[in-house]
């Protein structure tokens, strides 16, 4: 680096290279983010923006009309996340483990096909499943009938007790490809020598997976978990596409994203309120921040990384 000259010229080109990205990123992402946090401290009284401190948060957590909605959305959101962690990620790991068998034929065909739902938009996925599960069309009841389980059928998306779980499973169906791909990549990067050494010791098949491969891919599972967490806690599109902004039936599928949208944008007779919307956004920001910090300081720093 030519920094040793007595008085280095100011290197304008560094500014030129950095400026566009930093400007766009700051102006459209970072500034609005903080501005949203700031707006949560204001409210509108007679066309004017008035500073009210933490009043909005007091309303959100203290006023029962708001707090029941908020806790309902938060609880639903946690359930949404738990279903992803319990169903999506284990299926993803299992598929990746099967796919990473070196002699498996058609592996790339399976891989591409299983990834297809991930590339479809929420609108397509939401409506397609809504039609398939609908009692009017009769595909789901018809198929259950064919295996003699017709009694199990219920209009899942229309029942409060099942709607959220059904939508979570639709979302799992859509995104299973992502953990599958990431774990597949991690499994491929395990060197053969390690597996061969295990084989010499008599550890093969399932035992090799549990004792050798799984510990080695734990860091990837950690990354997938935090990606799932962030994606789930700002999810919106699927619920909106399938159930509308009211996240029916009777708000049973309401999550933080739809709650914020309704509050901020208004629905039916209720007017939109940007300040309460910002308050909910700030709460979401806090939740995501806590999750990311827990991951970075609690999990990732303790996890052993193996260098091959």
């Amino acid at each position, binding site marked *: *680096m030519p920094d040793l000259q007595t008085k280095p010229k100011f*290197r304008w080109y560094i500014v030129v*290279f*950095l400026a*566009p*990205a*930093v400007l*766009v*990123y700051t102006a*459209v*992402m970072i*500034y*609005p*983010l903080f*501005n*949203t946090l700031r707006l949560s401290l204001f409210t509108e009284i007679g066309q004017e923006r008035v500073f009210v401190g933490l009043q909005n948060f007091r309303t959100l957590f203290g006023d029962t009309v708001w707090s029941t909605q908020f806790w309902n959305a938060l609880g639903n959101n946690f359930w949404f996340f738990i279903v992803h962690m319990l169903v999506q990620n284990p299926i993803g790991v*299992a598929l990746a483990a*099967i*796919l990473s*068998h070196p*002699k*498996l034929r058609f592996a790339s065909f*399976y891989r591409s096909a*299983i*990834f*297809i*739902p991930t*590339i*479809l*938009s*929420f*609108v397509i996925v939401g409506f*397609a499943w809504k*039609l*398939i599960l609908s009692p009017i*069309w*009769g595909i789901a009841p018809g198929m259950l009938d064919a295996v003699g389980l017709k009694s199990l059928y219920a209009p899942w998306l229309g029942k409060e007790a099942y709607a959220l779980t059904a939508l979570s499973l639709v979302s799992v*169906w859509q995104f299973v490809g992502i953990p599958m*791909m*990431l774990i*597949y*990549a*991690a499994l491929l990067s395990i060197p*053969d020598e390690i597996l*061969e050494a295990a084989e010499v010791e008599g550890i*093969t*098949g399932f035992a090799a997976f549990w004792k050798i491969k799984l510990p080695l891919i734990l860091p990837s599972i950690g*990354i997938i978990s935090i990606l799932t967490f*962030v994606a789930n806690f700002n999810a*919106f*599109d699927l619920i*909106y*596409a399938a159930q509308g902004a009211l996240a029916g039936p009777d708000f049973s599928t309401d999550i933080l*994203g739809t709650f914020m949208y309704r509050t*901020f*944008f208004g629905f039916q007779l209720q007017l939109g309120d940007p300040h309460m919307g910002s308050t909910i956004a700030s709460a979401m*920001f806090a939740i*995501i*921040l806590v999750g*990311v910090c827990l991951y970075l300081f609690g999990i990732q720093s303790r996890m052993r990384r193996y260098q091959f």
Partner: protein
Amino acid sequence: MNSARQNPFSTYAAHGALILYTLIALFPVFVIVINSFKTRKAIFREPLAMPNSDSFSLIGYETVLKQGDFFLYFQNSMIVTVGSLFFILLFGAMAAFALAEYRFKGNMIMGLYLALGIMIPIRIGTVAILEMMVQTGLVNTLWALILVYTAQGLPLAVFILSEFMRQVSDDLKNAGRIDGLSEYRIFFRLVLPLVRPAMATVAVFNMIPIWNDLWFPLILAPAEEVKTLTLGSQVFIGQFVTDWNAVLSALSLAILPVMALYVIFSRQLIRGITSGAVK
């Protein structure tokens, strides 16, 4: 691994599991597409049958093409996606080059600052973004979407591209400097062509989420003439919810472009993910 370890039973089980899951993954798409080519009666009578000469009908597609402005929506989605990718790649590569190539005060901090956005979703700032777009008159323009997606894509792009730029040989760049090339020329002529595979990976990662996004088109650009395909099909389906032919055809038409993109770019996408670009 050698073949002695794989007994035929476990191979069958593996194929069985994969075929089962592939069917689960493809079944809904298959059902939607085959039924979009059937008459209304046939859709309900035998939803799982392939269309035949009796049940074949294009009535749904006719409704869609007559009622919805799908070519306009498609064009809007194209402009937004291509425009955003262009700026993500150009600005992202420039910033990545500055961070990877030069040592200067604040390099680390700038890198961390840009990396913040990888984990924090831009949607959190929606209220203020909308307010800003209203004030600058950008609301209901495609520029609003392009700006938002560019900002959203930059953090990961800078992160991935700077990893790759560190691997470009110093000798090459220094040879360029000795030949009197300016830093700009070194970047555009020498470095950019060498990181093209990484740029392709970044492009493919960003393409699908931008194309499929519903949130920002809904909030920033809901007007008819700037609707994207995703929002357009959402609104169309909402209006025609009882016209099953039209809904199924609209869904099939919305699937088509993404599938085409996927077929073209799937190798790039899968190579990008499995090469560890996101680790």
